[in-house]
Protein backbone atom coordinates (compact mmCIF):
# COMPACT_ATOMS: atom_id res chain seq x y z
CA UNK A 1 0.00 0.00 0.00
CA UNK A 2 1.22 3.45 -0.94
CA UNK A 3 0.02 6.60 0.79
CA UNK A 4 0.71 10.15 -0.24
CA UNK A 5 -0.16 12.75 2.34
CA UNK A 6 -0.11 16.52 2.36
CA UNK A 7 -1.28 19.09 4.86
CA UNK A 8 -1.64 22.79 4.03
CA UNK A 9 -2.60 25.97 5.83
CA UNK A 10 -2.73 26.59 9.54
CA UNK A 11 -1.57 29.79 11.23
CA UNK A 12 1.99 29.13 10.05
CA UNK A 13 0.89 28.27 6.50
CA UNK A 14 3.52 25.54 6.17
CA UNK A 15 3.20 22.44 3.98
CA UNK A 16 3.66 19.01 5.45
CA UNK A 17 4.21 15.96 3.22
CA UNK A 18 4.69 12.24 3.62
CA UNK A 19 4.97 9.35 1.21
CA UNK A 20 4.47 6.00 2.88
CA UNK A 21 5.12 2.65 1.21
CA UNK A 22 3.90 0.18 3.78
CA UNK A 23 5.91 -2.72 2.27
CA UNK A 24 9.10 -0.92 3.28
CA UNK A 25 8.03 -0.41 6.89
CA UNK A 26 8.52 -2.80 9.81
CA UNK A 27 5.63 -5.28 9.79
CA UNK A 28 4.00 -3.95 12.97
CA UNK A 29 4.02 -0.38 11.69
CA UNK A 30 2.71 -1.41 8.27
CA UNK A 31 -0.13 -3.32 9.90
CA UNK A 32 -0.96 -0.38 12.12
CA UNK A 33 -1.24 2.01 9.19
CA UNK A 34 -3.16 -0.38 6.98
CA UNK A 35 -5.55 -0.93 9.86
CA UNK A 36 -6.09 2.83 10.12
CA UNK A 37 -6.90 2.96 6.39
CA UNK A 38 -9.43 0.16 6.86
CA UNK A 39 -10.89 1.76 10.00
CA UNK A 40 -11.34 5.01 8.08
CA UNK A 41 -13.18 3.09 5.34
CA UNK A 42 -10.90 5.21 3.21
CA UNK A 43 -11.95 4.02 -0.25
CA UNK A 44 -15.54 4.99 0.53
CA UNK A 45 -14.76 8.43 1.93
CA UNK A 46 -16.13 11.15 -0.40
CA UNK A 47 -13.29 12.67 -2.46
CA UNK A 48 -14.12 16.25 -1.48
CA UNK A 49 -14.86 17.07 2.12
CA UNK A 50 -15.25 20.84 2.01
CA UNK A 51 -16.27 22.97 4.93
CA UNK A 52 -19.20 25.22 4.00
CA UNK A 53 -16.71 28.07 4.05
CA UNK A 54 -12.94 27.98 4.31
CA UNK A 55 -12.07 28.75 7.92
CA UNK A 56 -9.18 31.01 8.82
CA UNK A 57 -5.97 29.30 9.93
CA UNK A 58 -7.39 25.77 9.76
CA UNK A 59 -5.63 22.89 8.00
CA UNK A 60 -6.48 21.26 4.69
CA UNK A 61 -5.50 17.69 3.86
CA UNK A 62 -4.96 15.73 0.67
CA UNK A 63 -4.45 11.98 0.94
CA UNK A 64 -4.07 9.44 -1.87
CA UNK A 65 -4.04 5.72 -1.09
CA UNK A 66 -3.08 3.17 -3.73
CA UNK A 67 -3.67 -0.47 -2.85
CA UNK A 68 -3.35 -2.92 -5.72
CA UNK A 69 -5.91 -1.92 -8.33
CA UNK A 70 -7.59 0.59 -6.07
CA UNK A 71 -6.62 4.25 -5.91
CA UNK A 72 -8.52 6.98 -4.12
CA UNK A 73 -7.83 10.62 -3.27
CA UNK A 74 -9.52 12.58 -0.51
CA UNK A 75 -9.25 16.34 -0.09
CA UNK A 76 -10.60 17.55 3.21
CA UNK A 77 -10.95 20.74 5.19
CA UNK A 78 -9.99 20.16 8.81
CA UNK A 79 -13.47 21.02 10.05
CA UNK A 80 -15.04 18.47 7.67
CA UNK A 81 -12.83 15.46 8.50
CA UNK A 82 -14.95 12.52 9.69
CA UNK A 83 -14.10 11.14 13.12
CA UNK A 84 -13.17 7.80 11.55
CA UNK A 85 -10.53 9.44 9.35
CA UNK A 86 -8.92 11.50 12.10
CA UNK A 87 -6.62 8.79 13.52
CA UNK A 88 -5.11 8.10 10.08
CA UNK A 89 -4.49 11.82 9.46
CA UNK A 90 -2.95 12.19 12.90
CA UNK A 91 -0.64 9.23 12.30
CA UNK A 92 0.41 10.52 8.87
CA UNK A 93 0.99 14.01 10.24
CA UNK A 94 3.54 12.58 12.64
CA UNK A 95 5.30 10.72 9.80
CA UNK A 96 5.44 13.80 7.59
CA UNK A 97 8.24 16.20 6.95
CA UNK A 98 7.74 19.87 6.40
CA UNK A 99 8.48 21.68 3.17
Amino acid at each position, binding site marked *: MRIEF*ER*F*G*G*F*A*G*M*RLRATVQTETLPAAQAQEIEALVVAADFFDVPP*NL*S*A*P*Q*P*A*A*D*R*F*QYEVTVTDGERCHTV*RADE*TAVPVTLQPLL*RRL*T*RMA*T*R*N
Partner: protein
Amino acid sequence: MTVSTAGMRSAGMRPAGMRPAGMRPAYMRSACMPQHHVHCFIPPHMLKEIAERGSPAQRDRALKTLLVSEQLRGQREALTGLPGLATRALAVGKQRNVYDAENGSTLPGRLVRAEDAAATGDLAVDEAYDGSGATYDLYHDVYERNSIDNAGMRLDSSVHYQQGYDNAFWDGQQMVYGDGDEDLPETERLFNRFTIALDIIAHELTHGVTQYEAKLAYWDQSGALNESISDVFGSLVRQRALGQTAAEADWIIGAGLFTPRVNGVGIRSMKAPGTAYDDPVLGKDPQPAHMRDYKQVDYDNGGVHINSGIPNHAFYVVARELGGNAWEKAGRIWYVALRDRLEARSDFAAAARITHSLAGELFGAGSLEQQAVRTGWTEVGISVEGGDTGNGKAGCLGAPAAALATLLWPLGGPRGQVG
Protein backbone atom coordinates in the same frame (compact mmCIF):
# COMPACT_ATOMS: atom_id res chain seq x y z
CA MET B 1 -22.29 47.86 2.80
CA THR B 2 -24.68 45.50 1.17
CA VAL B 3 -23.02 42.25 0.44
CA SER B 4 -24.83 41.78 -2.84
CA THR B 5 -23.06 44.88 -4.11
CA ALA B 6 -19.77 43.31 -3.09
CA GLY B 7 -20.69 40.17 -4.94
CA MET B 8 -21.51 42.08 -8.09
CA ARG B 9 -18.47 44.28 -7.90
CA SER B 10 -16.03 41.46 -7.86
CA ALA B 11 -17.68 39.22 -10.40
CA GLY B 12 -15.90 40.13 -13.57
CA MET B 13 -15.72 39.17 -17.21
CA ARG B 14 -12.80 36.89 -17.66
CA PRO B 15 -10.65 35.16 -20.21
CA ALA B 16 -11.95 31.79 -21.32
CA GLY B 17 -11.20 29.07 -18.84
CA MET B 18 -11.05 31.29 -15.79
CA ARG B 19 -13.71 31.20 -13.18
CA PRO B 20 -15.68 34.32 -12.35
CA ALA B 21 -13.51 36.32 -10.02
CA GLY B 22 -15.95 36.07 -7.15
CA MET B 23 -16.41 32.32 -7.26
CA ARG B 24 -14.83 30.00 -4.82
CA PRO B 25 -11.74 28.66 -6.55
CA ALA B 26 -11.55 25.16 -7.92
CA TYR B 27 -8.92 24.13 -5.39
CA MET B 28 -11.53 24.46 -2.70
CA ARG B 29 -13.86 22.36 -4.86
CA SER B 30 -17.31 23.55 -5.65
CA ALA B 31 -19.39 20.66 -4.32
CA CYS B 32 -20.48 22.48 -1.21
CA MET B 33 -20.05 26.03 -2.44
CA PRO B 34 -23.57 27.41 -2.30
CA GLN B 35 -24.32 26.00 1.13
CA HIS B 36 -24.95 28.23 4.06
CA HIS B 37 -22.25 28.50 6.62
CA VAL B 38 -21.96 26.16 9.53
CA HIS B 39 -23.91 28.28 11.99
CA CYS B 40 -27.03 27.76 9.90
CA PHE B 41 -27.17 24.04 10.49
CA ILE B 42 -29.20 24.78 13.60
CA PRO B 43 -32.10 26.98 12.52
CA PRO B 44 -32.51 30.26 14.39
CA HIS B 45 -35.87 29.31 15.86
CA MET B 46 -34.30 26.26 17.45
CA LEU B 47 -31.45 28.37 18.77
CA LYS B 48 -33.96 30.71 20.35
CA GLU B 49 -35.57 27.72 22.06
CA ILE B 50 -32.20 26.66 23.38
CA ALA B 51 -31.41 30.21 24.45
CA GLU B 52 -34.61 30.28 26.45
CA ARG B 53 -34.72 26.76 27.88
CA GLY B 54 -31.25 25.24 27.73
CA SER B 55 -28.66 24.80 30.44
CA PRO B 56 -26.55 27.92 31.11
CA ALA B 57 -23.80 26.61 28.83
CA GLN B 58 -26.25 25.72 26.09
CA ARG B 59 -27.96 29.08 26.37
CA ASP B 60 -24.67 30.89 26.12
CA ARG B 61 -23.68 28.87 23.07
CA ALA B 62 -27.02 29.40 21.38
CA LEU B 63 -26.95 33.12 22.07
CA LYS B 64 -23.50 33.42 20.62
CA THR B 65 -24.53 31.53 17.52
CA LEU B 66 -27.56 33.74 17.11
CA LEU B 67 -25.47 36.85 17.50
CA VAL B 68 -22.94 35.86 14.89
CA SER B 69 -25.54 34.61 12.49
CA GLU B 70 -25.35 36.63 9.35
CA GLN B 71 -29.09 36.44 8.87
CA LEU B 72 -29.63 38.20 12.15
CA ARG B 73 -27.04 40.89 11.65
CA GLY B 74 -28.70 44.23 12.11
CA GLN B 75 -31.67 42.58 13.76
CA ARG B 76 -30.32 42.27 17.24
CA GLU B 77 -33.31 44.08 18.66
CA ALA B 78 -35.33 41.01 17.65
CA LEU B 79 -33.41 39.11 20.30
CA THR B 80 -34.25 41.40 23.19
CA GLY B 81 -35.98 39.61 25.99
CA LEU B 82 -33.86 36.51 25.67
CA PRO B 83 -32.16 35.59 28.94
CA GLY B 84 -28.52 36.53 29.09
CA LEU B 85 -28.61 38.98 26.26
CA ALA B 86 -29.07 42.05 28.43
CA THR B 87 -26.05 41.25 30.56
CA ARG B 88 -24.04 40.60 27.44
CA ALA B 89 -24.97 43.90 25.88
CA LEU B 90 -24.42 45.80 29.10
CA ALA B 91 -21.14 44.13 29.91
CA VAL B 92 -18.72 46.82 30.94
CA GLY B 93 -15.09 46.39 30.04
CA LYS B 94 -13.29 43.18 29.37
CA GLN B 95 -15.02 39.86 29.83
CA ARG B 96 -12.73 36.88 29.38
CA ASN B 97 -13.11 33.17 29.95
CA VAL B 98 -10.29 30.70 29.46
CA TYR B 99 -11.09 27.00 29.11
CA ASP B 100 -8.92 23.91 29.20
CA ALA B 101 -9.67 21.49 26.36
CA GLU B 102 -7.53 18.92 28.25
CA ASN B 103 -5.89 17.69 25.04
CA GLY B 104 -9.25 16.78 23.52
CA SER B 105 -11.26 18.23 20.65
CA THR B 106 -14.39 19.21 22.57
CA LEU B 107 -14.88 22.96 22.80
CA PRO B 108 -14.82 25.02 24.84
CA GLY B 109 -13.72 22.55 27.57
CA ARG B 110 -13.51 23.15 31.31
CA LEU B 111 -13.62 26.75 32.54
CA VAL B 112 -10.36 27.41 34.35
CA ARG B 113 -10.13 31.19 34.54
CA ALA B 114 -12.90 33.78 34.38
CA GLU B 115 -12.60 37.56 34.38
CA ASP B 116 -10.87 38.96 37.45
CA ALA B 117 -9.78 35.51 38.62
CA ALA B 118 -6.18 35.14 39.74
CA ALA B 119 -3.45 33.67 37.55
CA THR B 120 -3.56 29.88 37.47
CA GLY B 121 0.10 29.10 36.99
CA ASP B 122 -0.71 27.28 33.76
CA LEU B 123 1.30 29.29 31.21
CA ALA B 124 -1.09 28.72 28.31
CA VAL B 125 -4.13 29.67 30.38
CA ASP B 126 -2.55 32.84 31.69
CA GLU B 127 -1.11 33.85 28.33
CA ALA B 128 -4.50 33.43 26.66
CA TYR B 129 -6.09 35.52 29.43
CA ASP B 130 -3.50 38.30 29.33
CA GLY B 131 -3.21 38.27 25.54
CA SER B 132 -6.92 38.54 24.89
CA GLY B 133 -6.96 41.38 27.43
CA ALA B 134 -4.16 43.25 25.65
CA THR B 135 -6.02 42.79 22.37
CA TYR B 136 -9.26 44.07 23.87
CA ASP B 137 -7.34 47.07 25.20
CA LEU B 138 -5.91 48.12 21.84
CA TYR B 139 -9.28 47.95 20.13
CA HIS B 140 -11.04 49.62 23.05
CA ASP B 141 -8.57 52.27 24.18
CA VAL B 142 -7.27 53.32 20.77
CA TYR B 143 -10.10 52.60 18.34
CA GLU B 144 -13.06 52.81 20.74
CA ARG B 145 -14.24 49.36 19.80
CA ASN B 146 -16.07 47.31 22.44
CA SER B 147 -14.72 43.80 21.83
CA ILE B 148 -14.80 41.67 18.70
CA ASP B 149 -18.38 42.46 17.75
CA ASN B 150 -18.30 46.03 19.11
CA ALA B 151 -21.10 44.93 21.41
CA GLY B 152 -19.14 43.67 24.40
CA MET B 153 -18.81 40.04 23.30
CA ARG B 154 -17.03 37.93 25.90
CA LEU B 155 -13.61 36.76 24.76
CA ASP B 156 -13.46 32.99 25.10
CA SER B 157 -10.24 31.03 24.65
CA SER B 158 -9.56 27.31 24.85
CA VAL B 159 -6.02 26.08 25.42
CA HIS B 160 -4.41 22.61 25.36
CA TYR B 161 -6.44 21.69 22.27
CA GLN B 162 -5.78 18.13 21.07
CA GLN B 163 -2.27 16.65 21.21
CA GLY B 164 0.63 17.75 19.09
CA TYR B 165 -1.58 20.42 17.57
CA ASP B 166 0.72 22.89 15.78
CA ASN B 167 -1.87 25.59 15.36
CA ALA B 168 -4.19 28.27 16.69
CA PHE B 169 -7.46 29.44 15.20
CA TRP B 170 -10.62 31.49 15.64
CA ASP B 171 -13.57 29.13 15.08
CA GLY B 172 -16.16 31.83 14.50
CA GLN B 173 -16.99 32.10 18.18
CA GLN B 174 -13.81 31.68 20.19
CA MET B 175 -10.03 31.29 20.10
CA VAL B 176 -8.41 27.86 20.20
CA TYR B 177 -4.74 27.09 20.88
CA GLY B 178 -2.66 23.96 20.54
CA ASP B 179 0.43 23.17 22.58
CA GLY B 180 2.70 22.70 19.57
CA ASP B 181 4.95 19.66 19.64
CA GLU B 182 4.42 18.89 23.33
CA ASP B 183 3.81 15.23 22.50
CA LEU B 184 7.24 14.75 20.91
CA PRO B 185 10.52 14.12 22.71
CA GLU B 186 12.05 17.49 23.58
CA THR B 187 14.92 17.00 21.13
CA GLU B 188 12.46 16.76 18.22
CA ARG B 189 10.19 19.67 19.05
CA LEU B 190 9.97 22.55 16.57
CA PHE B 191 6.92 24.43 17.89
CA ASN B 192 6.20 25.76 21.35
CA ARG B 193 2.67 26.41 22.61
CA PHE B 194 0.76 28.84 20.41
CA THR B 195 -0.13 31.24 23.22
CA ILE B 196 3.55 32.07 23.61
CA ALA B 197 3.38 35.01 21.19
CA LEU B 198 1.00 37.87 21.96
CA ASP B 199 0.69 38.70 18.26
CA ILE B 200 -0.67 35.20 17.54
CA ILE B 201 -3.42 35.76 20.10
CA ALA B 202 -4.24 39.18 18.63
CA HIS B 203 -4.05 37.71 15.11
CA GLU B 204 -6.74 35.16 15.94
CA LEU B 205 -8.98 37.69 17.70
CA THR B 206 -8.68 39.98 14.71
CA HIS B 207 -10.09 37.20 12.50
CA GLY B 208 -13.15 37.66 14.70
CA VAL B 209 -13.20 41.43 14.10
CA THR B 210 -12.88 40.84 10.36
CA GLN B 211 -15.76 38.36 10.56
CA TYR B 212 -17.97 41.11 11.98
CA GLU B 213 -16.72 43.89 9.73
CA ALA B 214 -15.25 43.53 6.23
CA LYS B 215 -15.94 39.76 6.07
CA LEU B 216 -13.01 39.35 3.73
CA ALA B 217 -13.39 36.10 1.77
CA TYR B 218 -10.73 33.60 2.76
CA TRP B 219 -9.12 32.92 -0.60
CA ASP B 220 -6.87 34.62 -3.13
CA GLN B 221 -6.15 38.32 -2.57
CA SER B 222 -9.08 38.98 -0.23
CA GLY B 223 -7.91 36.00 1.82
CA ALA B 224 -4.35 37.30 1.88
CA LEU B 225 -5.74 40.69 2.96
CA ASN B 226 -7.72 38.92 5.68
CA GLU B 227 -4.50 37.27 6.88
CA SER B 228 -2.59 40.55 6.63
CA ILE B 229 -5.18 42.46 8.68
CA SER B 230 -4.74 39.83 11.40
CA ASP B 231 -0.95 40.19 11.26
CA VAL B 232 -1.16 44.00 11.30
CA PHE B 233 -3.29 44.21 14.43
CA GLY B 234 -1.48 41.23 15.91
CA SER B 235 1.77 43.14 15.65
CA LEU B 236 0.20 46.41 16.84
CA VAL B 237 -1.14 44.78 20.01
CA ARG B 238 2.33 43.47 20.77
CA GLN B 239 4.05 46.77 19.95
CA ARG B 240 1.66 48.66 22.21
CA ALA B 241 2.06 46.15 25.04
CA LEU B 242 5.85 46.49 24.76
CA GLY B 243 5.71 50.27 24.33
CA GLN B 244 7.63 50.10 21.06
CA THR B 245 7.68 52.66 18.28
CA ALA B 246 7.63 51.54 14.66
CA ALA B 247 11.41 51.92 14.55
CA GLU B 248 11.92 49.88 17.72
CA ALA B 249 9.56 47.02 16.86
CA ASP B 250 10.87 43.83 15.23
CA TRP B 251 7.71 43.38 13.11
CA ILE B 252 8.01 39.61 13.53
CA ILE B 253 4.86 37.51 13.75
CA GLY B 254 5.17 34.52 16.05
CA ALA B 255 8.46 35.37 17.77
CA GLY B 256 9.16 32.65 20.34
CA LEU B 257 6.95 30.06 18.68
CA PHE B 258 9.90 28.10 17.33
CA THR B 259 12.02 26.07 19.69
CA PRO B 260 15.78 26.76 19.66
CA ARG B 261 16.18 23.85 17.19
CA VAL B 262 14.71 25.94 14.38
CA ASN B 263 16.78 28.41 12.43
CA GLY B 264 14.29 31.25 12.42
CA VAL B 265 13.05 34.27 14.36
CA GLY B 266 9.33 33.67 13.81
CA ILE B 267 6.68 32.69 11.28
CA ARG B 268 6.53 35.90 9.24
CA SER B 269 8.37 39.21 9.00
CA MET B 270 6.40 42.31 8.06
CA LYS B 271 9.60 44.32 7.78
CA ALA B 272 11.31 41.82 5.49
CA PRO B 273 8.85 39.21 4.23
CA GLY B 274 10.56 35.97 3.21
CA THR B 275 13.31 36.17 5.85
CA ALA B 276 11.61 34.91 9.02
CA TYR B 277 13.05 31.39 8.84
CA ASP B 278 15.36 29.30 6.70
CA ASP B 279 15.68 25.87 8.19
CA PRO B 280 16.76 22.42 6.99
CA VAL B 281 13.54 20.86 8.29
CA LEU B 282 11.02 23.68 7.88
CA GLY B 283 12.35 25.07 4.63
CA LYS B 284 12.42 28.77 3.86
CA ASP B 285 9.87 31.49 4.59
CA PRO B 286 7.95 31.73 1.25
CA GLN B 287 6.49 35.21 1.64
CA PRO B 288 6.87 37.78 -1.14
CA ALA B 289 7.33 41.48 -0.35
CA HIS B 290 6.34 42.77 -3.80
CA MET B 291 3.64 42.13 -6.39
CA ARG B 292 6.17 40.90 -8.94
CA ASP B 293 6.74 37.91 -6.65
CA TYR B 294 3.03 37.19 -6.00
CA LYS B 295 2.62 33.41 -5.78
CA GLN B 296 -0.30 31.79 -7.57
CA VAL B 297 -0.62 28.47 -5.78
CA ASP B 298 -3.35 25.85 -5.62
CA TYR B 299 -3.05 25.25 -1.87
CA ASP B 300 -3.59 27.29 1.28
CA ASN B 301 -6.71 28.83 -0.32
CA GLY B 302 -4.53 30.33 -3.00
CA GLY B 303 -1.61 31.14 -0.72
CA VAL B 304 -3.36 33.37 1.82
CA HIS B 305 -0.51 32.85 4.31
CA ILE B 306 2.05 33.50 1.57
CA ASN B 307 0.85 36.57 -0.31
CA SER B 308 -0.14 38.35 2.90
CA GLY B 309 3.52 39.37 2.90
CA ILE B 310 2.71 42.03 0.30
CA PRO B 311 0.08 44.04 2.22
CA ASN B 312 1.98 43.29 5.44
CA HIS B 313 5.03 45.02 4.04
CA ALA B 314 2.96 47.93 2.71
CA PHE B 315 1.67 48.54 6.24
CA TYR B 316 5.19 48.31 7.66
CA VAL B 317 6.44 50.93 5.19
CA VAL B 318 3.57 53.30 6.06
CA ALA B 319 4.40 52.94 9.75
CA ARG B 320 8.12 53.36 9.09
CA GLU B 321 7.48 56.53 7.07
CA LEU B 322 5.28 58.02 9.80
CA GLY B 323 7.48 57.04 12.76
CA GLY B 324 6.23 57.03 16.34
CA ASN B 325 3.66 54.53 17.55
CA ALA B 326 2.36 52.54 14.60
CA TRP B 327 -1.05 51.95 16.17
CA GLU B 328 -1.85 55.67 16.34
CA LYS B 329 -1.88 56.73 12.69
CA ALA B 330 -1.15 53.80 10.36
CA GLY B 331 -3.20 51.54 12.60
CA ARG B 332 -6.14 53.95 12.65
CA ILE B 333 -6.23 54.18 8.87
CA TRP B 334 -6.20 50.37 8.58
CA TYR B 335 -8.80 50.00 11.33
CA VAL B 336 -11.28 52.39 9.73
CA ALA B 337 -10.72 50.66 6.38
CA LEU B 338 -11.52 47.31 7.99
CA ARG B 339 -14.56 48.67 9.80
CA ASP B 340 -16.10 50.88 7.12
CA ARG B 341 -14.70 50.33 3.66
CA LEU B 342 -13.24 46.92 2.84
CA GLU B 343 -15.70 44.36 1.49
CA ALA B 344 -15.86 40.60 1.19
CA ARG B 345 -13.93 40.40 -2.05
CA SER B 346 -11.74 43.47 -1.84
CA ASP B 347 -8.34 42.88 -3.40
CA PHE B 348 -4.95 44.53 -2.82
CA ALA B 349 -5.70 47.37 -5.23
CA ALA B 350 -8.95 48.13 -3.42
CA ALA B 351 -7.12 48.14 -0.08
CA ALA B 352 -4.53 50.54 -1.49
CA ARG B 353 -7.15 52.88 -2.90
CA ILE B 354 -9.26 52.75 0.27
CA THR B 355 -6.44 53.34 2.74
CA HIS B 356 -5.04 56.18 0.62
CA SER B 357 -8.43 57.81 0.40
CA LEU B 358 -9.05 57.33 4.13
CA ALA B 359 -5.68 58.83 5.03
CA GLY B 360 -6.79 61.94 3.15
CA GLU B 361 -10.12 62.02 4.96
CA LEU B 362 -8.65 61.42 8.41
CA PHE B 363 -5.50 63.50 8.19
CA GLY B 364 -6.03 65.82 5.23
CA ALA B 365 -5.52 65.62 1.48
CA GLY B 366 -1.83 65.66 0.66
CA SER B 367 -0.95 65.19 4.36
CA LEU B 368 2.19 63.37 5.41
CA GLU B 369 -0.05 60.48 6.39
CA GLN B 370 -1.57 60.25 2.93
CA GLN B 371 1.86 60.48 1.32
CA ALA B 372 3.09 57.69 3.58
CA VAL B 373 0.22 55.42 2.51
CA ARG B 374 1.09 56.05 -1.13
CA THR B 375 4.73 55.24 -0.43
CA GLY B 376 3.77 52.03 1.37
CA TRP B 377 1.73 50.60 -1.47
CA THR B 378 4.14 51.88 -4.13
CA GLU B 379 7.02 50.03 -2.46
CA VAL B 380 5.17 46.75 -2.89
CA GLY B 381 4.22 47.48 -6.49
CA ILE B 382 0.59 48.55 -6.04
CA SER B 383 -0.91 51.80 -7.23
CA VAL B 384 -3.25 53.69 -4.93
CA GLU B 385 -5.15 54.81 -8.03
CA GLY B 386 -5.72 51.34 -9.47
CA GLY B 387 -9.13 49.86 -10.12
CA ASP B 388 -10.47 46.67 -8.60
CA THR B 389 -9.38 43.50 -10.29
CA GLY B 390 -11.94 41.35 -8.52
CA ASN B 391 -10.01 39.51 -5.81
CA GLY B 392 -6.81 39.55 -7.75
CA LYS B 393 -8.06 38.43 -11.13
CA ALA B 394 -8.10 40.56 -14.22
CA GLY B 395 -11.53 41.53 -15.44
CA CYS B 396 -14.20 44.18 -15.51
CA LEU B 397 -17.72 44.11 -14.19
CA GLY B 398 -20.03 42.39 -16.62
CA ALA B 399 -23.76 41.98 -16.30
CA PRO B 400 -23.85 38.20 -16.92
CA ALA B 401 -21.22 37.54 -14.31
CA ALA B 402 -22.91 39.85 -11.86
CA ALA B 403 -26.19 38.02 -12.38
CA LEU B 404 -24.40 34.72 -11.83
CA ALA B 405 -22.96 36.00 -8.58
CA THR B 406 -26.40 37.08 -7.43
CA LEU B 407 -27.78 33.66 -8.27
CA LEU B 408 -25.00 31.89 -6.43
CA TRP B 409 -25.23 34.07 -3.37
CA PRO B 410 -28.74 35.43 -3.12
CA LEU B 411 -28.02 36.68 0.38
CA GLY B 412 -25.10 38.61 -0.94
CA GLY B 413 -22.25 36.18 -0.91
CA PRO B 414 -20.71 33.45 1.16
CA ARG B 415 -19.48 34.48 4.56
CA GLY B 416 -16.19 36.23 4.31
CA GLN B 417 -14.79 33.69 6.70
CA VAL B 418 -15.85 31.93 9.82
CA GLY B 419 -12.46 32.26 11.38
